[in-house]
């Protein structure tokens, strides 16, 4: 099972509504994935600034974590705590030092994502609870993707929840299961990639990041995955400026899309769209297998 949702706003006036609409879509997919849930929200950052999402923070470790971070960046940054995640904002030049700091900071703290726009939250439990922990309803942004998980290939943990982010501003959610993820993971590790879990979907995310790092465009990388990934998948991939959708050749995992002048929405089932504005007059269609659908904001 698993449920996937995505919302890409064409009309900037809707940006303050992004979190509320995404949260509503995510909750509707509870039956498809009650184990854990997660979402990525893209909402930009100041010029020359970077954002990093880090999870595993608690009252016990936040103080020392924050102090260490501010020391690295020389004080001119921001820390926003949301439940057990924090968003760090800092000048781009500090990126390697901040990443190294997060990686060495033990005590259950884990890197989640970084980039110019992405914020990535996930947790174990019902999608409604996970969304409420992070106050998703109040978030604004340009686009968001979310996932509700019914685990098949690996354990129910926060790390195993989707989305997976393996490159700057990139993230992936997956409905399906991959059968060649172990051999592909070994190949990618030889190419220098790092994986945090035994999860098949993280391998798909890593694979796409690897192709993108070779200079390929997102649609090229996705097309290549049709040859290299074996299994069932409907993917939604988020990037700084947009999102893309791909279904495997058999297309056994569901997908439906809706487009209006104001937005493009993706979901595993139509039910997720029922509360979107203007849905009655939206163009509703099922994405074809093996075809890359791609929407992007002009940079």
């Amino acid at each position, binding site marked *: 099972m698993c449920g996937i949702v995505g919302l890409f706003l064409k009309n900037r006036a809707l940006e303050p509504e992004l979190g509320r609409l995404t949260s509503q879509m995510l909750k509707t997919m509870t039956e498809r994935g009650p184990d854990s849930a997660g979402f990525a929200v893209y909402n930009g950052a100041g010029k020359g600034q970077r954002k990093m999402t880090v999870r595993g923070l608690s009252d016990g470790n936040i103080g020392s974590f924050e102090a260490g971070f501010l020391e690295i960046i020389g004080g001119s940054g921001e820390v926003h705590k949301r439940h057990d995640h924090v968003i760090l904002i800092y000048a781009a030049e500090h990126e390697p030092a901040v990443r190294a700091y997060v990686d060495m900071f033990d005590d259950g703290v884990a890197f989640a994502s970084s980039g110019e726009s992405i914020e990535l939250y996930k947790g174990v439990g019902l999608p409604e609870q996970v969304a409420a922990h992070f106050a998703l309803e109040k978030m604004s942004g340009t686009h968001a993707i979310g996932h509700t998980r019914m685990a098949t290939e690996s354990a129910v943990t926060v790390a195993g929840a989707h989305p997976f982010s393996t490159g700057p501003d990139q993230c992936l959610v997956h409905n399906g299961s991959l059968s060649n993820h172990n051999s592909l993971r070994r190949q990618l590790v030889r190419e220098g990639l790092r994986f945090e879990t035994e999860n098949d979907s993280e391998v798909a995310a890593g694979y796409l990041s690897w192709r993108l790092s070779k200079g390929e465009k997102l649609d090229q990388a996705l097309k290549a995955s049709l040859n290299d990934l074996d299994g069932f998948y409907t993917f939604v991939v988020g990037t700084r400026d947009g999102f893309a959708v791909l279904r495997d050749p058999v*297309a056994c995992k569901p997908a439906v899309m809706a487009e209006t002048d104001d937005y493009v929405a993706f979901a595993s*089932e*139509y039910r997720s769209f029922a509360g979107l504005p203007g849905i009655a007059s939206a163009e*509703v269609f*099922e994405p074809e297998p093996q075809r890359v659908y791609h929407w992007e904001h002009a940079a």
Partner: protein
Amino acid sequence: MQTIDLNTTTLRELNSRLQTENAGASWQVANPNGRHALAVGLTQPIEVTIEGHAGYYAAGMNQQASVVINGNAGQGVAENMMSGRVHVKGNASSSAGATAHGGLLVIEGDAGARCGISMKGVDIVVRGSIGHMSAFMAQSGNLVVCGDAGEALGDSLYETRIFVRGKVRGLGADCEEKDMTPEDRAIVTSLLEKAGVTDCKAEDFRLYGSARTLYHFNVDNASAY
């Protein structure tokens, strides 16, 4: 006509009311919002109109009833229909009319993958196109497609007749094009008329059926068993 609003009535209540309804009744279902299993297991000749998009298995197992969906339908619309009529005004997702034994399924838009999979006597008319693996292991009945067909059409087909007006991306194992007889054309004309399709002519369709090499025992293949 009576109306059931799914914003205030449960799905279970809707289905049990429709299933116990007397012949000739007419119902409208408001606010379906893509819910699954709408109007399933109906047994009486009643009319049901679903005002919006339906989720999975809408009008499944239908007998005698006429169900109209004023929107799109999710996976498995009219699956295992025995008789009656199901009319989708929008698009249908995968496995439309799966395993259906009888009745008429009309889809005004496109149908997704596996349309008419394992169909066993139903007639399906699609005004638009159909996806890959349609009519897989289809046993009997007619599938009429006014648009195009995806890959592997009619794979491992038995005796269903498939009529396609547009392009066929590829035929599945043991499916071949056949000559259209006047009887075949009469079937297409009659089904188009029943489905209310007025802008297509039977002469423009091509017929695909089983080459019958897979399901008849062939002594040359004995060593394979």
